[in-house]
């Protein structure tokens, strides 16, 4: 089991280094997913299967998928399809795939051998985690909810599209008029109009 731990840790470190050195966001994300999976395996070898499962479900699953979606949505534009073809070029999958295969081999090895680790481990079940969470650490759970409340409302406030003020609307309307008047009957840019009404 020791060797499994060290290989998984090495994979985690390699992936993390790759994450922060990639110039393309999607490439970095691919490595990050593998990094999270390898951390999950590290947790598993240390006797925390519950945390390992959470790591896979929440981080590698939900949060990373959200990341990928946000980045894909943000890059809307005429060159998007061209860009996506570049991102999903075969070569960029090689690195993450090899590292992920190493992890799969490790998982298969661990599951097949049932080897016990050299050091003593106390396994912590979901039940124990829950009784702690809603027993002595209930205030911690409540505080986390306030933390999330603050983060959500903050993201809403900072990310909201800014309203235009009356004088700014006047300025942009004047700009539209100036642009269109020489061409006669061409309609004003719909883009700016919709911004004003939003």
């Amino acid at each position, binding site marked *: 089991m020791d060797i499994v731990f060290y290989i998984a840790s090495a994979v985690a470190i390699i992936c993390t280094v790759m994450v922060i050195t990639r110039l393309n966001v999607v490439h970095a994300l691919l490595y990050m997913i593998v990094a999270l999976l390898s951390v999950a395996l590290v947790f598993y070898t240390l006797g925390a299967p519950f945390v390992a499962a959470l790591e896979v479900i929440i981080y590698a699953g939900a949060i990373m998928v959200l990341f990928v979606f946000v980045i894909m949505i943000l890059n809307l534009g005429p060159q998007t399809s061209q860009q996506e073809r570049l991102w999903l070029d075969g070569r960029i999958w090689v690195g993450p795939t090899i590292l992920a295969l190493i992890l799969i081999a490790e998982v298969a090895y661990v599951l097949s051998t049932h080897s016990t680790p050299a050091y003593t481990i106390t396994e912590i079940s979901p039940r124990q985690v829950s009784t702690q969470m809603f027993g002595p650490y209930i205030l911690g759970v409540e505080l986390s909810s306030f933390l999330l*409340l603050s983060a959500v409302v903050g993201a809403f*406030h900072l990310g909201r599209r800014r309203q235009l*003020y009356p004088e700014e609307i006047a300025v942009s309307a004047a700009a539209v008029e100036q642009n269109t008047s020489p061409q006669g009957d061409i309609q004003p840019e719909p883009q700016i109009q919709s911004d004003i009404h939003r």
Partner: protein
Amino acid sequence: MTAADVYAILPLIVLGGASVVVLLGIAVHRSHSLTLILTLTGLVAAFLLLPLVSIEAPRQVTPLLVIDSYSIFFSGLIIAASFIITVLSYSYLSQQRGHREEFYLFLLLATLGSVVLVASTHFASFFLGLEVLSVSLYTLIAYSRKEYGIEAGVKYLILAGLSSAFLLFGMALVYSELGTMKLAQIPTSLSNPSSGVSQVFVLGGLALIVVGIGFKLALVPFHLWTPDVYQGAPAPVTAFVATISKGAMFALLLRYFTVVNIHNYPSLYLAFVVIAIASMFIGNLLGLLQTKLKRLLAYSSISHLGYLLVAFLASGPLAAVAVAFYLVTYFVTTLGAFGLITIMSNSDRDAEDPEDYRGLFWRKPWIAGSFTAMLLSLAGVPLTAGFVGKFYLVTAGIGSALWLLVIVLVVTSGIGLYYYLRVVVAMFASLPKGSTIAPAMRISPHFTGALAVTILVLLLFWLGIYPTPILRLIESMVTGFS
């Protein structure tokens, strides 16, 4: 949790409840003044509950929090400061456009985080309180959504995130060696010879925790964010960062390193001495180079936290009293200074150019007079609160024979006097003939802001001339803990 536990943390519950009420209030009906009233009601209710709760004190509420007279005193200080900042924010935001109501929600949440910090006896509540405070501050700093506000917010976000990582790693190291995150158990696990605790890891963990704390307090190697964030944030938020955020963290620092006796760790002690000296020197010397008022106050606050470390290192029975009293005077003075900047600011920008203040005395004598009082108190001139506070710091330092630190404190205070006086001189200078008044100067202070500043000026002189009642209060509440 028993009913008595719930009773003991009622002020926190009220603060949390008030933030939810404000949130729902915004959802139902967006009204600036209604939100203000809800916020102030929540703060006043939480404040009034403190004396009732103190009957139950000291009480350990779950492993996370302790409600003792020490935490009640600092909670009261934080909630009172938050009240003043809320009132100032109202006069500041009245001139701003866009959504104004969410501001109060973040103020309440940040206050809640700070109150959790001063009552924390467990690494989990330490970290969660700190994060509730920090995450609220990210948004508050960038609240205006102008370029410099966003810049300041992003800087704070990245550096605070980094320092939280240091803090967490330090906590993990301490936990991995001692097997406990409860503050009270740390000294007993440390002194237990059979456990085979590696002092290196514990010391490394504590050092990393100090990095995290040092960032929040803007002590010198970790101070680089301070001037930019102070300058970019709206003036009331800068007041919050300078007072409540730092005060709560300092109260926590004092509690943690009194329980984990810092004198048992010579290397950590030495690190604090170096940090204190560097903060006092660099804060004051770089302050000399600043022209913008908010940046100047940023360096001033760095040096003030350095002064506070002198009393922290003295750690006698007088030290806790000196720290608490100095924090009170620092709160009053800093809130006053930023309050005056707030009421001088207009919708375009905050009043921070030296030009905004040139000849102010001849046009607005009351504002200039109040500002002079605040700056003199920051410099520690007699008859102001700052003098009495500094006197106690020096007494605590001499009591523990920290001669080097006391000498540095006195010398650097002398250097600092120069840049405070430079602003004062500018305010009393006459305007050049035919010059136009800067737009920020056409002020008609909102009465709420003016009222808050008036109260602070009165407090300033009261603390400077007759500090006995507040000192008695501090002695009865704070010394019980150490």
